[in-house]
């Protein structure tokens, strides 16, 4: 690989680290009596919000409709996801460091698979929480489910919910993009060389 490609590959590996600095996903909700809004931030290793108490306040609101309490400890994903992220970072750096050109594409593809698996998992969470409602809930509206939007916005009773990927997810996107750039740069270089050789 050329130095530029190796540098880009290195950047791709490092950009995944954004997941440790920023949330992967953010869910914003707003209601007439919550003009300041409530935010839930989903990270690779934790669930937080715009304030220290956002999660408690989400749970208080959710208990009226019988939604299961969101307890970060109960998500095993939050435990193993950081290892996966570190794995991709380390392997990405190794590819750059040892010039393992052939592994660039597999690395990118694997990252895409992992990212998609993450999205799928997130979608299942939303679905599970939105539909698995306590039959003894104080507020029951026949036929109503409370699946938050996966991406985009949705009205849920008095709340307007908006769900968007966070800067952490952009890190994965960037890594995939840079990985593909490296792959194509190298392929072009190789085909040029082949042409020259022939």
């Amino acid at each position, binding site marked *: 690989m050329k130095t530029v490609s190796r540098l880009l590959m290195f950047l791709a590996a490092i950009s995944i680290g954004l997941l440790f600095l920023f949330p992967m996903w953010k869910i914003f909700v707003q209601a007439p009596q919550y003009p*300041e809004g409530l935010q839930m931030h989903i990270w690779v290793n934790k669930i937080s919000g715009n*304030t*220290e*108490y956002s999660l*408690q*306040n989400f749970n*208080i609101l959710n208990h*009226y409709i019988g939604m299961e309490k969101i307890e970060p400890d109960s998500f095993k994903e939050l435990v193993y996801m950081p290892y996966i992220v570190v794995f991709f970072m380390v392997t990405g750096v190794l590819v750059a460091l040892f010039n393992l050109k052939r592994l660039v594409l597999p690395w990118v593809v694997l990252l895409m698979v992992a990212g998609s698996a993450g999205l799928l998992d997130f979608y299942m969470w939303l679905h599970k929480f939105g539909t698995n409602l306590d039959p003894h809930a*104080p*507020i029951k509206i026949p036929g109503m489910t409370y699946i938050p939007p996966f991406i985009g916005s949705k009205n849920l009773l008095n709340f307007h919910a908006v769900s968007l990927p966070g800067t952490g997810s952009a890190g994965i996107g960037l890594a995939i993009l840079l990985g593909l750039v490296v792959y194509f740069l190298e392929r072009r270089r190789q085909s040029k060389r082949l042409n020259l050789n022939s």
Partner: protein
Amino acid sequence: METVINKFRKVAPKAALLVAVAAGAALQGCSGIEGADSASTATAVAGDAASQVYVAPGKHDELYTFMSGGFSGQVSVYGVPSGRQLKVIPVFSQNPENGYGYNEETKAMLNTSFGFVPWDDLHHPKLSRTDGMTDGRWLFVNANNTPRVARLDLKTFETAEILEIPNSAGNHCSPYPTNDNEYVLAGTRFSVPINVEGDGKYEDVNFDEYKDKFRGSISFIKVDKEHGDMELDFQILVPGFDYDLANGGKGPSSDWVFFTTYNTEQANTLKEIGASQNDKDFLAAINWKLAVKYAKEGKAKEMPAYYYHNKLDEKTHIAKSEVKKSVRILRPEDCPGLMYLIPVPKSPHGIDVDPTGEYMVVSGKLASVIPVHSFSKMLKTIENKDFIGNVGGIPILRYESVLQGEVKEPGLGPLHTEFDDKGNAYSSMFVSSEIVKWTLKDLQVKDRIPVYYSVGHLVIPGGDTKKPYGKYLIAMNKITKDRYLPTGPELAQSAQLIDISGDKMKLLLDFPTIGEPHYAQAIEASKIAPNSVKMYSLEENTHPQATKKESEARVERNGNEVHVYMTAIRSHLTPDNIEGINEGDEVYFHVTNLEQDWDVPHGFAVMGNNNAELLIMPGATQTLKWVPQRPGIFPMYCTDFCSALHQEMQGYIKVSPKGSKTPIAFSTGAKKPKG
């Protein structure tokens, strides 16, 4: 042509109708006294007044105004220019609405050397200062009846501290902060026997010994720069007059504080006559920096005293009382240069120092002029020893030598003066019910506006600081009579908002206030609003009886005391079924509000409790005492509509007959409570 005629045809009936209505109104106006009054009122209000005071729904006011609640013992907070009441802060009076002075945490705030005093007469709010400007940190207020000074924290809008003032009676001349809050000064209205020679205790005194035995005192309360904590540093023993109001100097006069006095005749009965004999009373000028220096040098003599100092702990929200046993006394006769007396027309009320610090304006309610004294002339008069006598060794300066000039024919009953940012002064006229605007430059009256009725103090935002904000003036009236819908014999007290931004004063708004608004302080909202606390941190709650998780909620018996460690969160109390309590037990509910969200207080009340309720802010713990007087099932519930399930936020307590051996039991829901 035709179209014009058509137009006229269309408009003519409407115009006729308008004319008829106007005529009717005019006729009605002439027919009765009330109508005539409202017509005159209408002319006094400027045409665009409504738009000047209109603060659209959801928008915030430009200024906070803190008004004394007078005999309600509280401070009320208003938004200006809208005149909307934002809050009532309990200070010296018990407040069942939020449990202040009723719950176990705040009862100690009202402790005094006379025992628990559940009420007072709150007269003068003064905002804390930094470099001669209001800084929005604290509000100091006085209790007139049982002498005390309180400090309110403007982050929480709560009373943080109350300090009793010994050797004082009628703490009217209070509280006056210096330009950097170094001290808050408090003068006594009633002079009383102060046994400074003896052990400080009362010795039998007859009324006719007033002149010999009765003394006034000026208390120097030191204020902690960072936290605001007060401490009575020392007192100056002053002649036995009545001390009425005070104000600190500014700029060149920063080291001085001025106090108006009356009853320099030292009458002890029928003071309305006895205290009105001398043509002139005094303005007492005290060099506070020098006083502090003398006290530091050891000139202050320690004497026994007995007074309370009550403080609310920020983290536990528990008030604790400390009993103080001594006070240091400074005597002017031992301290040359400490104090001077400046003659002023009889029975003065307000003493106000202009923004430059050069002029001292004295409003004598029985005087026909407003004298304006000059600070630089005062210093010169002292330097020249241009004295006309002395009172107990305190020199009396020559009136004419200190006088800058007099405002002639200002009106009747001048009471109090404040200043705008353009060199104008505004004086309230109690007797002629008006505000009079005059200039400091030439002491000429420029404008006057009637107020309804009998105005006492007035306030201009920053009008007592070195750089007034100006723009508005609020007149605080003692009498309202026909200004509002009648409410029986006891009528609303009133404030009137006046626009002072132009040459002519314009009446903008009347709004009723609580108690009697003696004085007020107004401050830009931007100095307070950003620091306003939204909730208390549950994590930092160090209340010894706090219950921070539902799993820790419990009931414990200790002899005939039962302690309920309860939590409140939307929308249940834990525990909500309690048994094992006997008739006659002393039950303490320590309720912690587990919420950590904005504007979610929970209330707590028990049926038949001879006590108030609790109103617990998010993250705080409060304790309600209850002594059940008969067996039965007693409901308890949350009193603050907290959520959609607020009505369900309730529970039961089972009380067994005296001496029953029913074991303590408690629960919430079918399962044991989980954190």
